[in-house]
């Protein structure tokens, strides 16, 4: 009997967190994207689509700032003709959209959405699968998205799609390394791969990028934590930019690069299949932001020592603090999604060789050096001054060597003229 209860609770969690929290974020971020880019460009954006109450005999329509627009978009895409060109490889062509959406939604399961809720004394974590390999699982699954994109590009049997797919593969390989290397300092710092525990740690001892409290008391961080802000910030920067590349968002949206490749890998897709690609892109963005928020910005924690107090809130035996934390998490998530959108409408697209150079020559090395720097800072209390000094000198030498190599690799060969 308890087993069935466990399974039921799991199903409730999956439905609630995936289909009631993450999936609605996709249309909401589409709406935000359209309105935000509109105000950036001095336009209005969709502000009319609402509930047509006048059709039901009421006096006024209910616009609500056009929030129903994504629903209308979805209905439109659903009703469009689902056209499959005759020259495509049908099996892969049909499989590809699903392959881009599914991984993005699977990764939801390790994200901690809030602190545990307890009802009648039984504690429930607001995470679907409390895996001990959180970030690794996310990387392993989310890099499967590239199969969808590549297959879409190849099976479409069109040159634009193919170039888009190939670009996507190359981009994914280049940035996966930076992505993995950049969070090693974070994992070293927490000594744990379980995202729930990482967030709990941040709630107790200060967010990684805002360590202003310890053990529930406000106060300036000690020297080691303060010094660790440097590698933490570098890691944050590299991780965020790599997530941009990973999700094919604007400064790195070369796979679908409209100006060069028509529509990139989804040129030949229409109707719901296109909508799935679209959804996959936005779902990846949501998950990416969720991961950044979880690792660097305290996840669900409200911060400033208030989490303990929120955790203890209860009505009878129902401790609802987790729901407040869920709201805090969603607010952080939406703010980060807005940042994604701001970047998209500010930074122009990188050229392909610039993208590759940024990934391999700059971020790869920077992430590697950052790992050593973080390790040195973390290990410092156990080491003697001589070893720390030697390590620092070695680190500076390695950094200088890396910068030198990067500059040499950039030097253009002399053009010989006849």
């Amino acid at each position: 009997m308890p087993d069935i209860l466990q399974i039921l609770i799991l199903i409730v969690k999956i439905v609630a967190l995936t289909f009631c929290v993450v999936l609605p974020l996709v249309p909401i971020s589409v709406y935000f994207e359209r309105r935000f880019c509109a105000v950036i460009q001095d336009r209005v954006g969709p502000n009319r689509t609402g509930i047509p109450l006048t059709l039901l005999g009421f006096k006024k329509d209910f616009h609500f700032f056009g929030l129903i627009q994504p629903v209308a978009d979805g209905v439109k895409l659903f009703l469009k003709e689902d056209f499959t060109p005759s020259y495509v490889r049908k099996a892969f062509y049909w499989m590809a959209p699903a392959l881009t959406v599914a991984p993005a939604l699977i990764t939801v399961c390790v994200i901690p959405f809030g602190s545990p809720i307890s009802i009648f004394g039984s504690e429930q974590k607001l995470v679907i699968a409390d895996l001990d390999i959180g970030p690794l699982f996310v990387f392993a699954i989310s890099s499967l998205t590239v199969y969808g994109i590549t297959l879409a590009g190849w099976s479409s049997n069109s040159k634009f799609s193919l170039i888009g797919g190939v670009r996507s593969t190359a981009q994914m390989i280049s940035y996966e390394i930076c992505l993995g290397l950049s969070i090693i300092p974070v994992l070293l710092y927490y000594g744990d791969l379980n995202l729930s525990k990482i967030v709990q740690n941040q709630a107790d001892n200060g967010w990684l990028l805002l360590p202003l409290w310890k053990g529930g008391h406000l106060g300036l961080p000690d020297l080691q934590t303060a010094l660790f802000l440097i590698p933490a910030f570098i890691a944050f920067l590299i991780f965020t930019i790599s997530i941009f590349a990973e999700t094919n968002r604007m400064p790195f949206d070369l796979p679908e690069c409209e100006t060069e490749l028509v529509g990139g890998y989804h040129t030949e897709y229409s109707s719901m299949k296109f909508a799935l690609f679209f959804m996959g892109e936005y779902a990846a963005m949501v998950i990416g932001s969720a991961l950044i928020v979880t690792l660097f910005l305290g996840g669900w924690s409200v911060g400033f020592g208030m989490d303990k107090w929120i955790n203890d809130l209860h009505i009878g035996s129902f401790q609802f603090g987790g729901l407040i934390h869920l709201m805090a998490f969603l607010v952080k998530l939406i703010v980060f999604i807005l940042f994604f959108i701001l970047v998209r409408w500010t930074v122009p697209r990188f050229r392909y060789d610039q993208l590759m150079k940024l990934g391999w020559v700059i971020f790869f090395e920077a992430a590697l050096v950052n790992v050593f720097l973080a390790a040195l800072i973390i290990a410092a209390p156990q080491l003697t001054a001589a070893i720390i000094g030697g390590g620092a000198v070695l680190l500076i030498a390695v950094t200088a060597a890396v910068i030198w190599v990067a500059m040499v690799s950039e030097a253009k060969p002399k053009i010989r003229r006849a």
Partner: protein
Amino acid sequence: MAVVKLQRPKLNAGEKIYFGAILKGFFITMSHAVRSLLGKTTGAKDLASSGLGVTMQFPEQRWDNQLPEYYRGAPTLVIDEQGRERCVSCQLCEFICPPKAIRITPSEIPTDDKWAKVEKRPIEFDIDMIRCIYCGMCEEVCPEQAIFLRKDYLVTGHTRAEMVHDKKKLYEIGGIRTGLVNKWNELK
């Protein structure tokens, strides 16, 4: 032609990192966004817009007072200050009309009418607003100054039949227009 060799501008270290430029870009885009959200978009005043963007929110905000003097809206028929319908159904507008939107059925004015000396008036005067291209040729060609393009631009209807403006509708939109033609007035 002499060959001009252009040198790419040398970038300093800060420009090469381009991080500052990206931050500057954020400030520019955010300032536009904030100004739009405050209802003070650049150029909103000149374009008489809603302030949220340079767009005018149409049904709530109308551009009627922004229309220029020469604006060509729906063609209409007018009566003069003495209540006489000006059209004498000469059919010049019907013949000049490029899309053939105008159809006139002429008739004679009975001898016991006050304006019997005018001799003719239209018994039916239809302008098909689906065909009309608002070129203003009818206004230009009319010898009696009877047809004018007014500033009405909201010509809508649910059916094709609704979109045909008949004589009654045309006079209703057109109204009275004084002066211009004096030949039918009584001699003093």
